[in-house]
């Protein structure tokens, strides 16, 4: 009898937690979609692959939701998943020779063409400068400067002490500024 009551309790609570998780996933999708989209883009994913990668990020969010510590902020966790998905996609060789073409479908109807062109040009230059950073500096720079992740939240993802991360950020800022200056200079004096 006690066993059946216990199993009933477990079943009911499992169902409840299942429903909660479904609701939570839908809510995360609704509220954090823009953040994930932007993060994938800022991590340097090609425009044409962006939709697939965002899809894969949310698949992993769904699969990992049970292990997520709700006491911690959501965005660093999402950033970590997006970082891994984009890194894995970059490592996988498939379609790597495909020529990139921008899809106008991704351009928001809320931004004027002029604004979009300016932002797109700035983004290309920033991406080019970011690409020149060493890997460990790139992670901390993109996360902190472009994706609003606090340095303290990167300790686990980067696997290095906090002070090392601050040091990397300082070096990354200098290297980024120099790289961008070179890119702009090369454009002005071809």
């Amino acid at each position, binding site marked *: 009898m006690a066993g059946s009551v216990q199993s009933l309790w477990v079943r009911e609570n499992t169902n409840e937690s*299942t429903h909660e*998780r*479904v*609701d939570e*996933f*839908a*809510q995360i*999708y*609704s509220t954090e*979609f*823009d953040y994930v*989209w*932007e993060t994938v*883009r*800022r991590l340097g994913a090609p425009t*044409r*692959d962006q*939709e*697939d990668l*965002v*899809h*894969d990020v*949310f*698949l*992993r969010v*769904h*699969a*990992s*939701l*049970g292990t997520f510590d709700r006491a911690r902020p959501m965005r660093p966790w999402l950033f970590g998943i997006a970082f891994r998905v984009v890194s894995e996609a970059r490592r996988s060789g*498939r*379609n790597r*020779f*495909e*020529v990139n*073409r921008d899809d106008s*479908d*991704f*351009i*928001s*109807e*809320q*931004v004027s063409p002029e604004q*979009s062109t300016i*932002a*797109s040009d*700035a*983004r290309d230059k*920033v*991406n080019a*400068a970011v690409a020149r950073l060493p890997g460990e500096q790139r992670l901390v720079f993109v996360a902190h*400067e*472009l994706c609003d992740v606090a340095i303290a939240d990167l300790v686990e993802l980067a696997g290095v002490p906090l002070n090392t991360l601050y040091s990397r950020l300082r070096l990354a*800022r200098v290297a*980024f*500024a*120099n790289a*961008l*200056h070179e890119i*702009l200079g090369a454009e002005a004096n071809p």
Partner: protein
Amino acid sequence: MSRIREQAERYVAMARNGPKPAAAAKARIAKRLASSLGPSASPDLANESGNAVAKTAGASGAVALGAGAVVLVALFLGRIAMHESHPAHRAFTKHTHAPMEALSLEVRGETPLLSAIPAPSRVQPTPPRSRTINQVAREPVENILRSSLREERELLMLARSALGRADTTSAAAALDDHARFFPRGELREEREALRVHWVTIERGAQAGERALRSFEDRFPRSVFTDVLRVALNRHAIASGE
């Protein structure tokens, strides 16, 4: 040095204000997630998709239908999206007029061009699955991604079989389904190779040549290019073009 730093900060600020994703992209991903995770795992995602459909419809002049009607249509689409968005389901429902032939790899009257394109591996298409969230939660994410790949293969197999019968309507439907559900899927190169073949059969060798050039531009190192060219030449000779 401070000028260089200020310049960097200004560019970072501009890059941060990039374009927001279009509502259509959000809706498409919601549909794909509903398809990948099963309807029970993501009922609100279907509504998300429906809401975006309503926004898009409103933006494109469907306002005349009235706000109430739009909401009803959006809710309806949201409901059916959960079931119909599954690629395998769509493939099965769309191709019911040729069920067994479409699923068979032994295609009658296979053209030289078609035989030149490697077939996707033999996969028995399965009926649409309905997984519960608990099943999905236990399932490693790699399995979910692998099942997407299987669905990609199934759709391309349908397209390939239909092309073997010179059934260009069914082939186009399967290729369009693949493009809609897996626009950047792992097998997009295979899809575009089959598309070149479809253009050749449907519109002739000259159109096929143009499609092949476009394919080459997009996939400059594709392993399909040479076999497509050889087969296209054979097709042109056979049809006297």
